[in-house]
């Protein structure tokens, strides 16, 4: 904890400085609030509007968590399948990359046409953005298993299953966590984008309403909420990594 404070004060100070500059600039140049509200206004709106906002927040959190969980599951499953069945990897891997080239903004309305306004098209959007970093990270981790460890396992008579569970999976964990970190932050973005399509509640909905009524302060509240949420998700993954990949963190501390 002390460590976090020690390392955390510098970016915090920069952020504070940025806010001060922003506040002063808005004040001195007399920019109207609908164009760019000063940080203090945004802060006030965040507190005053909390009653209306927290429901939206809750809805987005639930959606992102659910989407992230599904995305992670599918991402891992894809990675394991592609790793264990090389012919599948050769034929499907390029298509996976293509799947990431379809702009979500274009795909999302189509998904609504196909699946309606329920939760399903939203989960599909989040899953689509989440699974890819995890699949790529896990596949890389599996494949980078050191040859000498693999050689030992084979000489000692490890079966294919043992090779995976006792060597490739634990070895790929650090790499997998890199993927999880990216996906965790993407999941919030995915959730907000999917909410734009049409939903009853959510930061995306709140944002659309705010911007169409020129409540720029609320737009910024939404932006900051998304940032904080992404940070929290990221932090949770970081914590899980600390607990699960103890050996790696110790190793890097030593170096």
């Amino acid at each position: 904890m002390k460590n976090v404070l020690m390392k955390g004060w510098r970016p915090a100070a920069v952020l504070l400085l940025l806010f001060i500059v922003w506040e002063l600039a808005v004040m001195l140049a007399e920019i109207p609030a609908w164009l760019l509200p000063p940080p203090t206004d945004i802060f006030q709106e965040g507190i005053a509007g909390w009653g209306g906002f927290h429901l939206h927040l809750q809805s987005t959190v639930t959606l992102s968590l659910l989407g992230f969980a599904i995305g992670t599951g599918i991402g891992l499953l894809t990675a394991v399948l592609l790793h264990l069945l090389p012919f599948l990897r050769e034929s499907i891997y390029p298509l996976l990359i293509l799947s990431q080239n379809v702009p979500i903004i274009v795909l999302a309305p189509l998904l609504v046409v196909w699946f309606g306004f329920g939760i399903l098209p939203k989960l599909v959007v989040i899953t689509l953005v989440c699974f890819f970093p995890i699949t790529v990270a896990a596949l890389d981790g599996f494949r980078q298993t050191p040859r000498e460890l693999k050689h030992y396992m084979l000489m000692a008579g490890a079966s294919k299953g043992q090779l995976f569970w006792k060597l490739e999976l634990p070895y790929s964990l650090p790499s997998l966590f890199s993927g999880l970190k990216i996906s965790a932050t993407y999941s919030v973005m995915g959730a907000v984008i999917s909410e734009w399509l049409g939903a009853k509640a959510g930061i995306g909905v709140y944002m659309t309403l705010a911007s169409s009524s020129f409540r720029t302060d609320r737009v910024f509240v939404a932006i900051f909420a998304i940032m904080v949420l992404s940070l929290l998700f990221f932090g949770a993954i970081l914590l899980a990594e600390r607990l699960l990949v103890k050996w790696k963190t110790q190793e890097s501390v030593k170096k």
Partner: protein
Amino acid sequence: MIQLSLEHLTKSFDSNLVLSNLSFHINEGEFVSILGPSGSGKSTIFNLIGGLLRPDDGTIQLSGEKINGKRGSISYMPQTPSLMPWRTILQNVLLGQELKGKADPETAREMLHIAGLTDYENAYPHELSGGMKQRAAFIRALLSPQPVILLDEPFSALDELTRHDMQKWLLDIWSEHKPTILFVTHNIEEAIYLSDRILILSSKPAKVVEEFKVPFSRPREGELLLEEKFLACKKEIHTALKNQ
């Protein structure tokens, strides 16, 4: 009693003949070393015994049973310690047993104690020195249920002093447990000091060109390395190797 025998093994990769009619055997409880010029196909021999490769011709027998292409019949200690970085030392030394069935932490603790690694039972490999890692790797091989241990130049990466300590330590452990050992090395002194018999390989294609029975009684002390008869033995083997 013959424990491991290789009969008329031939192996080639594409048109490159690596082993040609290679035969030798190891008796139960015997310590045999293989010496050969580098690139003489020693690792191919190990991969064949380990079942990673199949010979083109010939048979490998373990306790009278044919093990061509059958993985996991022997216990193995590689050149690098190859400990899993996410396992503690205790978990690491149990890995060989785990792969073949049930792990027995009690015996493992005892072995670690004898090896002077008790304090490191719950440490991760990166916290250990090179020599300690190799000791852990050897204990892992020793604890594995297979009757024969293959050692692939296990001390080549260690410094001279550590290597000598490790050799003494290996001899102590070996004389207590008497596992059957096949040891590959570049180092003539090491081979003489440790083994009952030394097999000398020719360069490609490899076959056993000469066999030395090491004439020194056991237990062997470190001073042996400096004695006249030891040097004579070393000279003899050196000449035999040079003629390859």
